[in-house]
């Protein structure tokens, strides 16, 4: 199924975690907890050694995962081992996609991703201009390719992104790298307005931390909320304090639930909907 279908059913909660953080086994439990908490799609990071688009929280998660032995091959095993039913989106950097397998280009990666049931890809260092080969591979294997739209994205570029993207569009809520922040940016509303006539759903990420944030974002017109650092923080804290896997999983589930209800509350007040569904 195309990822956009997920959004038909009310505002989507799209949590993000780094696969294998802090260990393969713990991470499985954490990702599964997200589904229980109400995730509609899960973005699953495949760690790259040079994560130029991430803030410190996710950088540290990436280091933990890499140090625990995560590789692209292990990542796909991880996906296969996961017991979730919601669609998964793989988030990683282009060099890993490009180098994978025997193909001279991204095809082997996409093939293997499709095989494990991954529904889409987000590659933050691959702008629409360079995305041709990956776009075709995704088409060949039925994957969505999700692009990010930033507050700085020009109108000209918006068109290119609209052409290349599918599944949903990832709306970057503000400038900067990923990382949880207190307030919600004005830039978000503006970008959402610019995307008003797109036919893919618009999921907003970067800096969403609480149910209240999620509510406001959805109220501003988002079709989904993407939450990364706020969840990775929980994993990090659990790791540092040596907490039980179940405890951390329960915290993640609770956080997801908070975000999910926030988002749903937002929809009730959203300009695009008359009221509760």
């Amino acid at each position: 199924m195309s990822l956009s279908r997920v959004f038909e059913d009310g505002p989507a909660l799209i949590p993000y975690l780094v696969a294998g953080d802090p260990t393969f086994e713990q991470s499985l439990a954490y990702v599964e907890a997200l589904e229980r908490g109400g995730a509609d799609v899960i973005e699953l990071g495949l760690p790259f050694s040079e994560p130029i688009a991430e803030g410190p929280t996710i950088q540290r998660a990436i280091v933990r995962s890499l140090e625990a032995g995560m590789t692209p091959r292990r990542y796909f095993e991880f996906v296969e081992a996961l017991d979730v039913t919601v669609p998964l989106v793989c988030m990683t950097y282009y060099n890993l996609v490009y180098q994978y397998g025997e193909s001279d280009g991204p095809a082997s990666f996409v093939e293997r991703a499709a095989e494990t049931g991954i529904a889409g890809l987000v590659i933050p260092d691959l702008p629409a201009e360079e995305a041709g080969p990956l776009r075709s591979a995704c088409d060949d294997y039925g994957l969505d390719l999700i692009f990010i739209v930033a507050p700085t994205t020009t109108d000209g570029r918006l068109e290119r992104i609209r052409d290349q993207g599918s599944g949903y569009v990832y709306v970057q809520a503000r400038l900067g790298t990923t990382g949880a922040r207190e307030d919600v940016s004005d830039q978000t509303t503006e970008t959402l307005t610019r995307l008003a006539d797109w036919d893919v759903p618009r999921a907003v990420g970067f800096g969403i931390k609480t149910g209240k944030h999620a509510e406001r974002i959805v109220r501003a017109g988002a079709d989904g909320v993407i939450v990364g650092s706020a969840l990775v923080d929980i994993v990090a804290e659990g790791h540092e304090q040596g907490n039980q896997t179940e405890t951390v999983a329960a915290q993640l589930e609770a956080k997801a639930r908070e975000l999910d209800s926030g988002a749903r509350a937002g929809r009730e007040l959203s300009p695009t909907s008359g009221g509760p569904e």
Partner: protein
Amino acid sequence: MSTDSKFGEYGGQYVPEALMPALEELTDAYERYVLANEDGFLDEFRRRLRTFGGRPTPLQYAEQLSERYDREVYLKREDLLHGGAHKLNNALGQVLLAKYMGKERIIAETGAGQHGTATAMAAAHLNMPCEIYMGETDIARQRPNVFRMRINGSEVRPVTTGRGTLKEAISETMRDWAASVENTHYVIGSVVGPHPFPSMVRDFQAVISKEARTQVREETGQLPDAVLACAGGGSNTMGAFHHFVEDSEVSLYAVEAGGDSLNVDEDAGVAPNSASLATGAEGVLHGARTRLLQDSDGQILESHSVSAGLDYAGVGPELAYLVDNGRVTPATVDDEQALRAFHRLSQAEGIIPALETAHAFGFLEAAAGGRRDDNSESDSNGTTGNGDDELGDVVVVNVSGRGDKDLETVIEKTAAANLDVGPQMSLFRDLSRHGGTVE
């Protein structure tokens, strides 16, 4: 000068979407100001390079080396540029461009600290606030340059991720840029990164080969047979090569850091060298497709070189392209050869080169037949590249920088490696600044 964003398959713009508009804006500014000299940008740039930077730099006939190698060796003296390295050509160009673009803040990464110092100097000169990201390993090994940046009024931001060298510093600066792109220009320090940086930095550095080509003809009545330059990111290489690329009779040698060894330890994620041209493979790093040091999964390896300025896992896309198509010959020189070359040039010519630069001289020595008097003494182990004597009669070596920043490192490493080349330092090495006595 060209506005192509690709060199064959290399190059391109692999950056987060937030930066793409900045790259478009920069490409536009590059085309207008740098390529079309709008508002007299190039005139101002050249004037400032002359009066503030000290251009033109001389092309010096190296008497002792010429005798040693029985060929005419000429030195392009970028070490005499303000700040002590070719880096100012680019830093001044970019900071000035940022001014023309109306930017209000400068950020930059630095490895050896030479690009950082050059940027700090250019920013002070042009009255722009400036912040420099530097890996903490590099901060520790290039201390004088940290002081210089601070004294010029720049902030220095230690980068603690990874091994804390240039690679991490670039990543971190890109992160800052992604958050600050509207009022900030990122002055990248070499011919790397997304388009238009590789072309633009090359154009700013091309003054080296422009001058050298004229100078060598004035001196010898001919073009050189070979041009040698060390390659980290490749900016001094591309600067020294650019105006010779069309001269097919001129051989071009890019000398990379062979480090400890050319073998890679995949498990540790470490390449004990920085030889992306010689041993790397195609991939995408820091915004460009190019040749990289990476493991079979595509994870970037930690590079190594005794010289901080060469210690980088990638290389400029244009240089990778010129190597692939055979126009440029890659070579490597290991840490020990570089140290030996450092002492050789210092003692024979009275020029203390940067450790980066010393690699180019290491290759001059190691090239078979390089030494006229005694081939058996030639330390040709640990070198790759041109085996037979193709260097020819007239060789230009680009002295990309001076070695003041490397004194402590060289003294330490020379002693540690027990090399027979350096001066006895025992009397002075442990001399405390505070104690104030030698016995």
